[in-house]
């Protein structure tokens, strides 16, 4: 398997080294290394229960690792205080597994939430930006609805619009297509590719959807029992002779 170039001329968007995390007796990560170059899209693959979601929470500082280093845009975030971490978070968009839209707020208000708090814009401009964001994910006509009134796929789209609100340079996706039918899942995959192309963001997608990863990922990392079992371009992984890798990619 070929080595990733790493340290591209723009540097790493995300650089994780020796990351360890346990919950009580359960070890989630035994020391993993991970790189996302600027503008690159990396899929972190693995069956359920391999701590993929934990990885994202570590990257955004919602949890702290037991050991190791996490650099976002070259800045070490392990041990960072809340205020400093919040500055880093403004540059990261996070799409949650179930979208995690605020269910007391309308679609419009959900997307406006980060805008209102971090950019001092006139109300007109907030509305205009919200409209543009919703348009970019094909949800412009649904702004007045509550999250409970739209489907799971639509919630994901709105979740993406909200994640893009502050124009982040890094996007994190937690199982973007889980719980969706194959057609809607494909639409979301395409939307991810489109977003990456248009915005030149670096993205890390945690998923067990191998077909999806083939669509949007430049690089795949397969986790197994708290370690990186294999990594490479998706084509490399497809050709892997390792029985576990072959089994996972075939099943997925």
């Amino acid at each position: 398997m070929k080595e990733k170039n790493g340290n591209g001329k723009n540097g790493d968007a995300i650089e994780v080294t020796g990351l360890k995390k346990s919950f009580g007796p359960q070890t989630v990560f035994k020391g993993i290394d991970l790189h996302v170059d600027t503008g690159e899209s990396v899929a972190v693959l693995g069956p359920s229960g391999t701590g993929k979601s934990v990885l994202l929470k570590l990257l955004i500082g919602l949890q702290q690792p037991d050991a190791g280093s996490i650099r976002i845009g070259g800045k070490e975030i392990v041990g960072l205080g809340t205020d400093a971490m919040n500055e880093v978070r403004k540059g990261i968009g996070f799409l949650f597994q179930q979208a995690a839209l605020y269910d007391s707020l309308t679609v419009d208000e959900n997307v406006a939430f980060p805008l209102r708090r971090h950019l001092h814009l006139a109300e007109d401009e907030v509305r205009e930006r919200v409209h543009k964001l919703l348009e970019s994910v094909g949800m412009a006509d649904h702004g007045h609805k509550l999250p409970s009134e739209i489907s799971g796929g639509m919630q994901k789209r709105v979740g993406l619009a909200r994640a893009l609100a502050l124009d982040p340079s890094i996007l994190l996706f937690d199982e973007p297509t889980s719980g969706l039918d194959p057609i809607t899942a494909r639409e979301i995959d395409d939307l991810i590719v489109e977003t990456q192309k248009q915005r030149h963001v670096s993205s890390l997608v945690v998923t067990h959807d191998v077909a999806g990863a083939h669509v949007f990922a430049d690089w795949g990392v397969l986790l197994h029992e708290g370690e990186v079992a294999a990594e490479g371009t998706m084509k490399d992984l497809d050709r892997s002779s390792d029985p576990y890798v072959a089994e996972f990619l075939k099943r997925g």
Partner: protein
Amino acid sequence: MLMTSVVEWFGELGQFTWKMLRTLLLPPFEFREFLRQLDAIGPKSVPLVMLAGGATGVVMSMQTRDSLVHLGAKGMLPAIIFYSMVKETGPIITALVVSGRVGAGIGAELGSMRVTEQIDAIEASAVNPYKYLAATRVAACILMLPLLTLVADASGFLMGWVADFIAEPISLRLFLDHATRNASLGDFLPPTFKTAVFGLIIGLIASFQGMRAHGGTEGVGRAATQSVVLCSLFVILADVILVRLIVLFFPS
């Protein structure tokens, strides 16, 4: 075992309170969310508080009247209802009813926000959930409890008069006159303002229990139940101390 978990609970509550208090000093104040909470806690509790206060007034009037007739002190009924309602029954009935309605509401709402990752989403958008969710609810409870108590007081007194009127017609003006002949603001203000402390307890404990919920829908149910139980319990315990302090500092 029980002792350690009680100590742990108080420790976590202390940390929670500290995190919330720190956010109060930093702008911006979440005014929109604060207004939404004022409405959810105040006006929407009015019917329940009126009913609870009114029913208590009727019962008190009927039972006390019976005893007073035996003692030949029927003329004291208005004053007894007034003092009893204003000094203790109104405040405690209001606090217990609000513990049930608002305690469960906040516990369940924040609990489900926690388990559906909405609170993580707030943090990921670099917004402090202690400020946005907890501080607004606690402040709204503190402000609304004394006002709701006035509603319960008035409703209880009025229904006490109605019950008395049915037994033996007496004008409301005369009834009120008898009731407040020797009353002063000193009788009225301390017991009403002590309910701000009840509001603090309800808002704080309900937000705390909600935000530490875990474990899916079952966890949400647990958060709501524990919230109601602990709010009611701590309101009653706090009342013992508050009444002692009022007797000490505002002797009649």
